[in-house]
């Protein structure tokens, strides 16, 4: 009996903002657009709320990639917090690169509430890109990040 080799299905954690990018995802849903099921969306009030801890924790706990999504520059509901996120995003990518994680595993996507189709298409594209990169394989038997409980679980 031969076992059919399944394609690698990446696990992606996506952070969206309440006002634009989550609405874009919502719109994609109400319009019955289909997109890859690999991304798990988490809604924040604003992309500026994205604590870099969330991203590192997602990677440490097994995500193959992380998507950060917010309002287009200039459109932020909280004036300029998406710019703040942009600066943190650029810095995070540099840190991840030094940690041996391909910076491409962290993606930034601007999406307005009207851009459901763009949102869906970009997620499909991103899933394919991560599939190309392969699993992050962060955890292994000698030092699995999940081996010991994450400290101060409640404090995030």
């Amino acid at each position, binding site marked *: 009996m031969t076992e059919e080799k399944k394609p690698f299905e990446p696990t992606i954690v996506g952070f969206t903002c309440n006002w634009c990018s989550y609405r874009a995802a919502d719109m994609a849903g109400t319009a019955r657009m289909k997109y890859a099921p690999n991304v798990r969306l988490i809604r924040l009030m604003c992309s500026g709320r994205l604590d*870099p801890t969330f991203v590192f924790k997602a990677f440490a706990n097994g995500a193959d990639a992380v998507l950060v999504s917010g309002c287009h520059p200039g459109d932020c509901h909280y004036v*300029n917090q998406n710019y703040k996120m942009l600066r943190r995003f650029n810095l995070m990518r540099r840190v991840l690169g030094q940690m041996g994680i391909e910076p491409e595993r962290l993606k930034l996507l601007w999406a307005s509430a009207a851009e459901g189709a763009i949102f869906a298409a970009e997620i499909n594209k991103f899933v394919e890109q991560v599939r190309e990169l392969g699993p992050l394989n962060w955890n292994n038997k000698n030092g699995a990040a999940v081996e*010991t409980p994450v400290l*101060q679980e409640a404090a995030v």
Partner: protein
Amino acid sequence: MSKPKFAMYWAASCGGCEIAVLNIHEKILDVDANFDVVFWPVAMDAKYKDVEAMEDGSILLTLFNGGIRNDENEHVAKLLRRKSQILVAFGSCANEGCVPGLANFSSIKDVVDTAFSTISTDNPNNIRPMTAYDMPEGTLHIPTMYPVLKTLDQVVDVDYYMPGCPPESHQIAAVIDLVIQVLQGKAELPPKGATIGAGGSTVCDECGRKRNVKTIKEFNRIQMIQPDPELCLLEQGIPCNGPATRSGCNSRCPSAGAQCIGCYGPAEGVVDYGARLVSAFGSVIDSDDPKEIDPILDGLVAPAGQFYRFNLAGSLLRAAKPAWKSGD
């Protein structure tokens, strides 16, 4: 009545913690007056088998400094855990990996190559350490190195955490005073898992420098500029780790004109030290233009080194991918 027993051990560390203990000066006599020192390799001769022969839980207080780099470190950590009632992760290495933990950026091969085959190393026969070597008299063993350095609490249960590289002597003296008071029934121990000998807030909180709204257009390395003696260093573009670092050192480095490098580890409530700094540094950059942001970030020459100098092994990611990989 026999005195309660005290032990101190160094695993992957530099020995600075031991010196910090001796730096408490005459207070060391109080340690001797109140404790029977049974195991302290740097100060007295003792063998592992002597510790193994002790009854479980017979040592009252063990200060454990150093990270867990090899199987010998792990063996002694587990041994001392069994023999001790109170095990303290003492100093940055045991708490969060510290500088030895920076090797977690590299695979074992790279670490060994750097130690034995760089241009500045005189090693013509390319001699490398071997974990086992056959001699006519029998086989010799040296400890096996692990792919990554672990913190003490990633290996055994830890009762208290005492951060610092090294812990400040006045903090050590205060902790010793507390333990002696507990022995005399005059005080109670803090709850298990507490951080002792340090403050709960950040270095910035203790820093005497003047603070305004931070907006910076470039990062400067401390050796490149003459910093203003009174103004917040981060405001001057010097990457100071104060915003994420636990207080307890009386803001020593910033007071002396040098940036905080984070030796007291994450402040209370900070889950990932580096992530907190990414957040803080990202906030203070005064630009909304991607074309401008990147050149500013170039001023942070090695961001991961800046953010995880003391904290890599204790961070969420714990090591870089090459280090994890070398354990496959």
